[in-house]
């Protein structure tokens, strides 16, 4: 009796898991059949959650809520409201200032290459596949294969990714240095194949005799000859015929708010 109850209870729990597994498989199949339609819906929701979360986080960071709670309690109510209002205003101005800096940097790139400036609408570090979302899609003439460029603020733009999926008003960008993604590159006159490591870093092998200096720009013929990073360090093993070149992006990906999209395939 007891064991039959246990068996039936386990069966119902198993049925739940089987149903969930079937659900996952059906959703995945529907997504493939609809050409990524379900992924587009999920991404719209995800970017909304991310935007709401980042606005809330900046509001909390801008206010004094995160600091000494006791000190705040001691303050007069009116004074507290005033402080919060002013600090929020300062935080807003800080955000605008950062955006302004990013846009000014992008303007340098825009002077030489035609394209469009678009906002980043997701976290840059959350994806296990080295992808992130931008807030422009088919409706804004973004197409699969377009190049995504960010500027370090000194005039030179670096290609950080390529549009891999497009929906109505958002696109998924795969980073150039996404994990295990290979990219043809040239450092000085030395041809390389940069293997992405994630987080804006890549590694490449070069012949030991090749001269590669630190800080040298790494260009990619696959991306219109634009730079994709700089040589961060070179490691030589006397027993090896090759030297390992570590390539990095000279900009902080997580601090980016806007990027520049250059039409590539049209």
């Amino acid at each position, binding site marked *: 009796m*007891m064991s039959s*109850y*246990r068996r039936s*209870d*386990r069966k119902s*729990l*198993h049925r*739940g*898991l089987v*149903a*969930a*597994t079937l*659900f*996952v498989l059906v*959703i*995945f199949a529907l*997504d*493939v059949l609809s050409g*990524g339609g*379900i*992924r587009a819906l*999920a*991404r719209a929701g*995800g970017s909304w*959650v*991310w935007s709401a*979360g980042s606005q809330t986080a900046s509001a909390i960071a801008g206010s004094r809520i995160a600091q000494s709670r006791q000190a705040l309690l001691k303050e007069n109510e009116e004074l507290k409201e005033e402080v919060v209002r002013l600090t929020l205003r300062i935080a807003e101005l800080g955000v605008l200032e950062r955006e302004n800096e990013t846009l000014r940097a992008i303007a340098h790139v825009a002077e030489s290459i035609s394209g469009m400036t678009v906002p980043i609408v*997701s*976290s840059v*570090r*959350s*994806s*296990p*596949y080295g*992808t992130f979302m931008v807030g422009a899609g088919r409706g804004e003439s973004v197409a699969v294969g377009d190049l995504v460029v960010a500027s370090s603020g000194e005039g030179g733009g670096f290609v950080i990714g390529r549009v*891999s*999926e497009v929906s109505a008003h958002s696109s*998924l960008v*795969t980073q150039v240095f996404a994990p295990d993604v290979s990219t043809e590159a040239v450092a000085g006159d030395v041809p390389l194949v940069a293997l992405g490591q994630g987080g804006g870093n890549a590694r490449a092998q070069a012949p030991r005799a090749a001269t590669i200096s630190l800080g040298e720009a790494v260009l990619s013929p696959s991306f219109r000859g634009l730079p994709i990073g700089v040589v961060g360090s070179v490691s030589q093993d006397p027993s090896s015929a090759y030297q390992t070149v570590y390539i990095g992006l000279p900009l902080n990906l997580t601090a980016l708010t806007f990027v520049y999209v250059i039409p590539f395939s049209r």
Partner: protein
Amino acid sequence: MSFLSVANVRPALGLLGLFCAVIAAPWVTLLVMIILALRYRAWEVLVLGLLVDLLWFPGLSQGVFPLFTLAGLALVWGLAPLRREFLIEKEDLVY
């Protein structure tokens, strides 16, 4: 009943995983999935894996596989014998 009672742990972990899928590093979501899969017969693991892939997966044409969906399936079904062997589950205690 405390807010942190055992009954609340599973939904709390599920919500944490949901949140992490959108904003946190991928290993955090994976860790939540592993914890859930080790302790419960959690359908949430499958949904979290699917969600991560729906959000971030660039498509089969890019030469990558939906790793988190596959990881979810492996965790839920692969860890079933381990759970059955080592964990005293609720249905084992209530007759």
